[in-house]
C-alpha cells in the first residue's frame, strides 16, 4: 500500500508541473524533456526484447509507426464522435499499442524461430515494409504526411505512461515469471529442459515490447501533431538499439539513463554545427570502448527491482 501512495503522489507532482509550472518553462527544453520520455519508453520496451530475452530486433521504428498512425487516425477521424478528449486520447493510444502488438504477434510467430542475425534481418525488413505500406495509404496522409493531429500529448501524459511502463516491465522481469525470459536468453536448450517453452517467452517479450513501442509512437504523434514516414526509417530503430546497448543490455535503469544522454547530447552539440553528428558518433564509439557492457552493464538501481 505504501508503494501505491508513492506512485499516486508522483503522478500528482507530474500533474502539478504540467498545469502549474510548464506554461512558464522554456518551450525548447520542455520539448527535449518530452522527447527524453518518449525515447525512454522506446528504449525500455526494446530492452525487454533485446536485453532480457536476447532477441536482436531492428523493427522498433515500425511498431512505433503502427502505434503512432493508428492512434492519430482515431483521434483525427474520431474527433467528431463526442467522446471526452482524455478518454479518446488514452483509448487511441491503447488501441495503437494493441494494433502494434497484434502485428508483432503475427510476424513474431514465424520469425522468432530464427536466431541472431536472421531475426535482425527479418525485423529490419518488417520495419521497412510497415513504413512503405503507410507511405501508400492516402487515408493517413501518404507521402504528404499526416497533418492536423490534435496536440493531446504533454509532459504529464508522457511521464505518467513512462512510469506505468517502468512499473509494468520491472515487475514483469523481476518477478518469478520474469526469470523465464532471462533463462531463455541464456540457454534455450536448458530452458526447455526445465519445462519452459522458449518460443512462447520470445513471442511474449516481442509482443509486449511492440505494445509499448506503439504507445510511444502514439505519444510522439500527439506531441508533434504531424507524422511522416521519414521519422520511422530503420535509422530510428538503430537509434533505439544504440540506447539499449549503451545503457547496458538487460538493465531498465541503464536504458532510462542512456535514453536521456542520447537525447540531450545532440542538443548540447549544436554549438559544433556541422561537426555535430561526427562528434556524436565519436562519443558513442568512445563510450563503448570505455564501457563495453554499457553504462550500467546488467546492474539496476536498487529501487528498480522493488517497484
Amino acid at each position, binding site marked *: 500500500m505504501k508503494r501505491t501512495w508513492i506512485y499516486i503522489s508522483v503522478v500528482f507532482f507530474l500533474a502539478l508541473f504540467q498545469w502549474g509550472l510548464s506554461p512558464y518553462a522554456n518551450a525548447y527544453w520542455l520539448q527535449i524533456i518530452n522527447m527524453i520520455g518518449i525515447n525512454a519508453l522506446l528504449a525500455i520496451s526494446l530492452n525487454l526484447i533485446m536485453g532480457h530475452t536476447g532477441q536482436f530486433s531492428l523493427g522498433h521504428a515500425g511498431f512505433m509507426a503502427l502505434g503512432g498512425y493508428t492512434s492519430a487516425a482515431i483521434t483525427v477521424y474520431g474527433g467528431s464522435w463526442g467522446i471526452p478528449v482524455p478518454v479518446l486520447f488514452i483509448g487511441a493510444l491503447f488501441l495503437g499499442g494493441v494494433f502494434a502488438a497484434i502485428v508483432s504477434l503475427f510476424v513474431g510467430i514465424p520469425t522468432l524461430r530464427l536466431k541472431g542475425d536472421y531475426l535482425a534481418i527479418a525485423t529490419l525488413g518488417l520495419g521497412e515494409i510497415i513504413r512503405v505500406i503507410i507511405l501508400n495509404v492516402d487515408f493517413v496522409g501518404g507521402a504528404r504526411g499526416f497533418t492536423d493531429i490534435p496536440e493531446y500529448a504533454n509532459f504529464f501524459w508522457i511521464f505518467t505512461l513512462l512510469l506505468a511502463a517502468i512499473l509494468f516491465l520491472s515487475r*514483469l522481469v523481476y518477478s*518469478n*515469471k520474469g*526469470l523465464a525470459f*532471462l*533463462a531463455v536468453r*541464456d540457454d534455450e*536448450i536448458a530452458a526447455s*529442459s526445465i*519445462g519452459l517453452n522458449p518460443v512462447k517467452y520470445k513471442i511474449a517479450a516481442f509482443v509486449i515490447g511492440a505494445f509499448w513501442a506503439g504507445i510511444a509512437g502514439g505519444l510522439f504523434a500527439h506531441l508533434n501533431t504531424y507524422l511522416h514516414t521519414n521519422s520511422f526509417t530503420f535509422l530510428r530503430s538503430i537509434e533505439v538499439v544504440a540506447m539499449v546497448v549503451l545503457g547496458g543490455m538487460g538493465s531498465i535503469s541503464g536504458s532510462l539513463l542512456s535514453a536521456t544522454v542520447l537525447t540531450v547530447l545532440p542538443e548540447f552539440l549544436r554549438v559544433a554545427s556541422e561537426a555535430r553528428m561526427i562528434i556524436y558518433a565519436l562519443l558513442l564509439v568512445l563510450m563503448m570502448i570505455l564501457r563495453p557492457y554499457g553504462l550500467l552493464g546488467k546492474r539496476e538501481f536498487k529501487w528498480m527491482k522493488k517497484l
Partner: protein
Amino acid sequence: MAFFETKNCSITFGGLKALTDINLTLNAGEILGVIGPNGAGKTTFFNLITGVYEPSDGDLFLEGKKLNQLSATERSQMGIARTFQNIRLFAGLTVAEQVQVASLQGFKAGFYESILQTKKYGLKVDEVNKNMAELLGLFDLNHLANTPAIDLSYGDQRRLEIVRALATNPKLLLLDEPAAGMNATEKKTLVSLIQKIHQEFKLTLILIEHDMSVVMSLCPRIVVLDYGVAIAEGSPAEIRSNPKVIEAYLGEVIDA
C-alpha cells in the same frame, strides 16, 4: 506396465547411425547405469529421451504414453528432467534464481498476478522460496544462494544442475556424468546424495558415468553402449566379466 520403455529406437544423422534399435524397459524406482566409450551414443540416448532429437525409428513411452511427438518442454512437464554433460546453467542468474525459474511449472500464479503483485502471488513466491531453500540445503548450496552461478566451482555447478532438475519435480531423472571433474571425496558424497534423493523424491534414475566406482556402487543394472548399439545389459558383476564389454570399454585386467 513398464514405467519407461524404448522400442527399437534408432537415430540417424545423415548416413551415421548414432543409435541402433535400442530396446529398454525401466521399472518405477529403478536406477540404471549407461556406460560406454566416448562417442558411443550415451548422450544422444539422453537427447532422445528428453526430446532434443526425435527418433528416426521406433517409439518411446513414459507410463504408457507415447513420447515421440512431444517437445522437450512437454516432456519436462510430464516429469522427465536432466542434467547436461557440458554444464548448461543460466549464465545471468544467481544460484537461487536457477532453482526459482525451474519451479515455474508448479508456479500457477499468472502473468497479471505478477504485474499487479496480488496476495496470491506473494504466497506462491514464499512457497517456491521455501522449497528452494530445502533443495539447496540438501546439496549444501544454501550459503551460495545469491552468488552468480557461473562463479561456482565446477563440482558445485554440477550439483546445482541436479538441484535445478529436481526443482521441476521430476519422476524420471537423467544424470549425464554427474561425477565428472570431482575428486574422490566429492564423488563419495555425491553417491550418497544421489541415493538420498532417489529415496526421498521417489525417482527413477538413469545415469551416464565414466567412473566405474560410482556406477558400480549406484546401479543394480547397467547397459553398455558401443557405436550406438547396446552390446550388453546386466548387473555390475555380469558387466565386469562380459568379454564384449571388456574388449570395447573396460579393458583387460593385467596381472601384476
